[in-house]
């Protein structure tokens, strides 16, 4: 259920998604005044009409407005933190400015409008939101708008990056400006044809209406409105008060294809020569091939066409993926150990704790020191579609199809790996079956390119699920140490030391040169520090506040190496550092409140650093009925965070009573059950699709629940043990709350653009961890809570590296024959 806040603008309170657009209501303008938003007039931008056979319009970008929320005085004031005024989304928007004029919208004779987006659809709904922007600005029905993926375009430099929840923020104006220019050209062409002034004409549902009653369709004007040479033109954007589509809950444009099985992912492509290809991977992380001892035998197996050693292992190509799996089982490979051979959870945890920089804020005489330490296990991006790609590498050229969030880096890295100039490599971007950070890295496309080159044949590369856990990417182990000084009443200082295993930023931020810079020895930690500095924010006034990041196990690759293989395989997983930063922060705040004998909610409310934090804390407590009477063993928890210009808080109730914790679901890790989740967030202006935003928050809530309870990798002797989703326990239906409420507060006029792809995770994770601590009376200091409660699965062998498929599927549905799940933490 989504409850819209009482003060919500009517734009978003429309209950029925995709309701037919009605005339702009008087409410809209009134609401804009009510929430204090500047009632913008017609905003003007410069853009271009490009020469072509039909209308092609292009556009520049304007900057975002800094969020200046009024500071609050409760508690001992904190120093301003970098992210208070300039955060990661600002950095990405600013980087996008110089080249965004290359974003185009084209009108076709069949009346459709097309746009090749320079963002990647990974499930977050960006394709739908961008189609909505175009439909709105052009007055064309949503179903007439076709949004596809642009190929890698190196000339876009910084502007082909999907990450940091910035897609809508960075595309909001360029796409609309291009659409407005295209519509303007259609109006001019119609005016010319009808011998009227363009100002007398109006666009509606893909048609231009004249006061004379004449009607011309966009399609029939598409060619006449084309220009022979590039022209600079002024675009006048539709005023927000006239919006009929932007801000309305709208269903996804790809939903019908999805529910009928027609949506195609890379491995679904009808390219019969690109045969299934998989890689036999090493038993330890980033191990290497010493020798392949039976390649010829394996090559003679049924269906197998090629066996070739590549950087990451031994690639096999066959008629079916099943025959690739058979070949991998038959391969006899001698391996060199990887760079982290011998490491384990315990040894890495010790390294992280030893790496903690000393405290710097001095102890104040007469105060007490309160200090806690929290460990977070390794985890994995684990999108359901594993790393995949199709590659067709010829002697002097290559063509690759893959799901890349940074296609320019993918193209440049593939070129380097193949020894080809960048211009000889075509990289076609394909939407993916999830990402959560996984598609920032091009492991699928690079494996595919290398295998195709060595085999001299096109390949359809796919990682096995076990490969993803064991050699894929995710957030590494992290330790958060937090120390406060207090006088029994007030908190006088706060320090946080956040230690993490190397986070790979080697993908750079959108262009090949930047990717190379982040791979310079020593540069990685600098990048991590910047990202941490831009995203970490302590929400409470606790005196002088210092948060510091330290990373261990840095990569040692030479500049320009396409892939980091000298340490753990990591990367920016959904919300990067913040799920663990915020969970530690809120656990600490809970424990500190208990130490000071304060109510955990009131403590947060009273120390909130600014009015927006206080507002979301108050709102979530009210909506979640904080403090209501609950049975022993059931408790509430609150998590608070600010990121992507939006302030959010989550309240959950978790049932930790034995009858719940020990409930039996065949083959399931059950444990505590989150029975209710209430999520409140402020909303930056320009929320395009509330239904999509709600979906992202609902999904983030499920991530948060799993991070608190069950979702981790166990590191033993340089390898991860997990090999399936029953081992790596992301939330399943048996741990889903039956009551999930998302509350979007009225648009915040001070925050121009926001993003929802990640924001749900951290506050929920924190709230669940706190609620479990409160219910049990003992707060967890190692997360997820199940991590050290045993290995509740049979560890699949690491040689061969992937499990064979069972043969008893007709007898076992829905639980597999081997389902285990006796752990009920």
């Amino acid at each position: 259920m989504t409850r819209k806040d009482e003060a919500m603008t009517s734009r978003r309170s429309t209950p029925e998604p995709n309701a037919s657009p009605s005339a702009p209501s008087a409410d809209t303008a009134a609401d804009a005044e009510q929430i204090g938003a500047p009632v913008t007039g017609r905003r003007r931008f410069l853009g271009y009409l490009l020469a072509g056979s039909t209308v092609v319009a292009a556009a520049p970008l304007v900057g975002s407005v800094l969020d200046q929320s009024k500071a609050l005085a409760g508690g001992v004031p904190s120093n301003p933190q970098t992210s208070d005024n300039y955060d990661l989304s600002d950095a990405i928007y600013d980087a996008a400015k110089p080249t965004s004029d290359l974003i185009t919208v084209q009108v076709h004779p069949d009346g459709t409008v097309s746009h090749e987006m320079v963002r990647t659809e990974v499930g977050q709904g960006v394709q739908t939101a961008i189609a909505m922007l175009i439909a709105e600005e052009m007055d064309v029905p949503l179903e007439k708008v076709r949004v596809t993926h642009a190929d890698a375009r190196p000339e876009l430099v910084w502007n082909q990056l999907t990450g940091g929840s910035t897609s809508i923020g960075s595309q909001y104006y360029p796409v609309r400006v291009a659409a407005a220019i295209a519509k303007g050209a259609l109006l001019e062409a119609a005016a010319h044809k009808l011998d009227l002034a363009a100002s007398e004409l109006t666009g509606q549902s893909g048609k231009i209406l004249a006061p004379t009653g004449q009607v011309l369709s966009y399609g029939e004007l598409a060619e006449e409105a084309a220009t022979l040479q590039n022209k600079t033109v002024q675009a006048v954007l539709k005023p927000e008060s006239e919006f009929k589509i932007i801000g309305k809950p709208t269903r996804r444009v790809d939903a019908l294809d999805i529910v009928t099985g027609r949506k195609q992912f890379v491995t679904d492509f009808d390219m019969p020569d690109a045969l299934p290809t998989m890689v036999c991977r090493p038993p330890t992380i980033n191990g290497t091939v010493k020798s392949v001892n039976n390649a010829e035998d394996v090559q003679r197996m049924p269906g197998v066409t090629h066996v070739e050693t590549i950087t990451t292992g031994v690639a096999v190509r066959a008629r079916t993926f099943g025959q690739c799996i058979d070949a991998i089982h038959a391969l006899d490979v001698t391996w060199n150990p990887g760079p982290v051979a011998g490491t384990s959870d315990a040894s890495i945890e010790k390294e992280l704790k030893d790496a903690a920089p000393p405290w710097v804020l001095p102890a104040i005489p007469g105060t007490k020191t309160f200090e806690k330490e929290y460990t977070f296990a390794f985890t994995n991006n684990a999108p359901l579609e594993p790393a995949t790609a199709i590659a067709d590498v010829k002697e002097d050229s290559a063509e690759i199809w893959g799901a890349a969030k940074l296609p320019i880096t993918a193209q440049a890295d593939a070129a380097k790996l193949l020894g080809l100039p960048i211009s000889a490599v075509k990289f076609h971007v394909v939407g993916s079956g999830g990402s959560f950070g996984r598609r920032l890295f091009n492991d699928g496309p690079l494996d595919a390119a290398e295998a195709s080159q060595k085999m001299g044949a096109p390949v359809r590369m796919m990682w096995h699920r076990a490969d993803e856990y064991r050699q894929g990417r995710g957030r590494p182990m992290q330790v958060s140490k937090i120390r406060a000084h207090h006088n029994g009443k007030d908190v006088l200082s706060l320090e946080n030391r956040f230690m993490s295993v190397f986070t790979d930023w080697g993908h750079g931020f959108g262009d090949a040169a930047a990717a190379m810079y982040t791979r310079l020895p020593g540069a990685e930690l600098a990048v991590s520090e910047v990202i941490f500095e831009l995203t970490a924010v302590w929400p409470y006034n606790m005196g002088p506040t210092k948060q510091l990041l330290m990373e261990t196990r840095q990569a040692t690759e030479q500049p320009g190496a396409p892939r980091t293989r000298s340490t753990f395989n990591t990367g920016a997983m959904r919300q990067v550092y913040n799920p663990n930063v915020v969970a530690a922060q809120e656990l600490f705040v809970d424990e500190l409140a208990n130490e000071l004998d304060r109510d955990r909610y009131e403590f947060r409310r009273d120390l909130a650093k600014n009015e927006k934090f206080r507002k979301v804390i108050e709102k979530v407590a009210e909506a979640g009925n904080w403090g209501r009477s609950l049975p022993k063993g059931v408790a509430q928890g609150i998590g608070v965070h600010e990121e992507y210009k939006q302030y959010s808080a989550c309240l959950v109730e978790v049932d930790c009573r034995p009858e719940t914790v020990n409930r039996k679901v065949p083959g399931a890790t059950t444990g505590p059950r989150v029975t209710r989740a209430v999520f409140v967030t402020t909303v930056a202006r320009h929320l395009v699709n509330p239904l999509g935003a709600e979906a992202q928050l609902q999904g983030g809530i499920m991530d948060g629940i799993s991070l608190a309870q069950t979702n981790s990798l166990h590191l033993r002797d340089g390898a991860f043990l997990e090999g399936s989703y029953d081992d790596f326990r992301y939330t399943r239906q048996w741990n889903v709350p039956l009551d999930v409420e998302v509350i979007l507060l009225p648009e915040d006029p001070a925050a121009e653009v926001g993003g929802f792809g990640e924001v749900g995770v951290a506050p929920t994770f924190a709230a669940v961890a706190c609620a479990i601590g409160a219910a049990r009376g003992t707060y967890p200091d190692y997360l997820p809570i199940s991590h050290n409660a045993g290995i509740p699965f049979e560890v699949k062998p690491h040689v061969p590296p992937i499990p064979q498929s069972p043969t008893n599927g007709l007898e076992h549905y829905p639980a597999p024959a081997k389902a285990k799940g006796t752990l009920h933490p």
Partner: protein
Amino acid sequence: MPERSFIVNGRQVTVDIDDDVRMLWVLRDVLGVTGPKYGCGINVCKACTSHINGRAFNPCSVPVSKIKPDDEITTIEGLGQPDNLHPMQKAWLEHDVAQCGYCQPGQIMAAVDLVKKVHAEGREVTDADIDTQMRNVCRCGTYYRIRQAIKDGAKQMQGS
């Protein structure tokens, strides 16, 4: 190679393929029926859930040799057509369930099977049924909308 014959989405098909190749690969790599997705290959993630003779199964874990000539396999492509959707597909659209969409064919096929099963038992689908029977992984976390869609789809299936 042995020839194997069976029915896929109402059409009799024949494939030349080794006995132990699992049905998921026969469908996807040989027949080009790509609605059932790969997510694990070991009967865990349920992304490939399809129906055999009207009941759900996971083709990743069934060798083609176990499929008989008169076995009728239905994948998401055979459940309903864009202009004639199955009530569960309609419910999925109504609730705007999908995010990335990769697991959704399997989710829908599993949901249809669950509802048929509980209706055959003369009762309505419960949250407990969904807890224990819907093992399908959705890594985007659309579980809450899946629950709503199953309950709505179940009502429409009863009426149809």
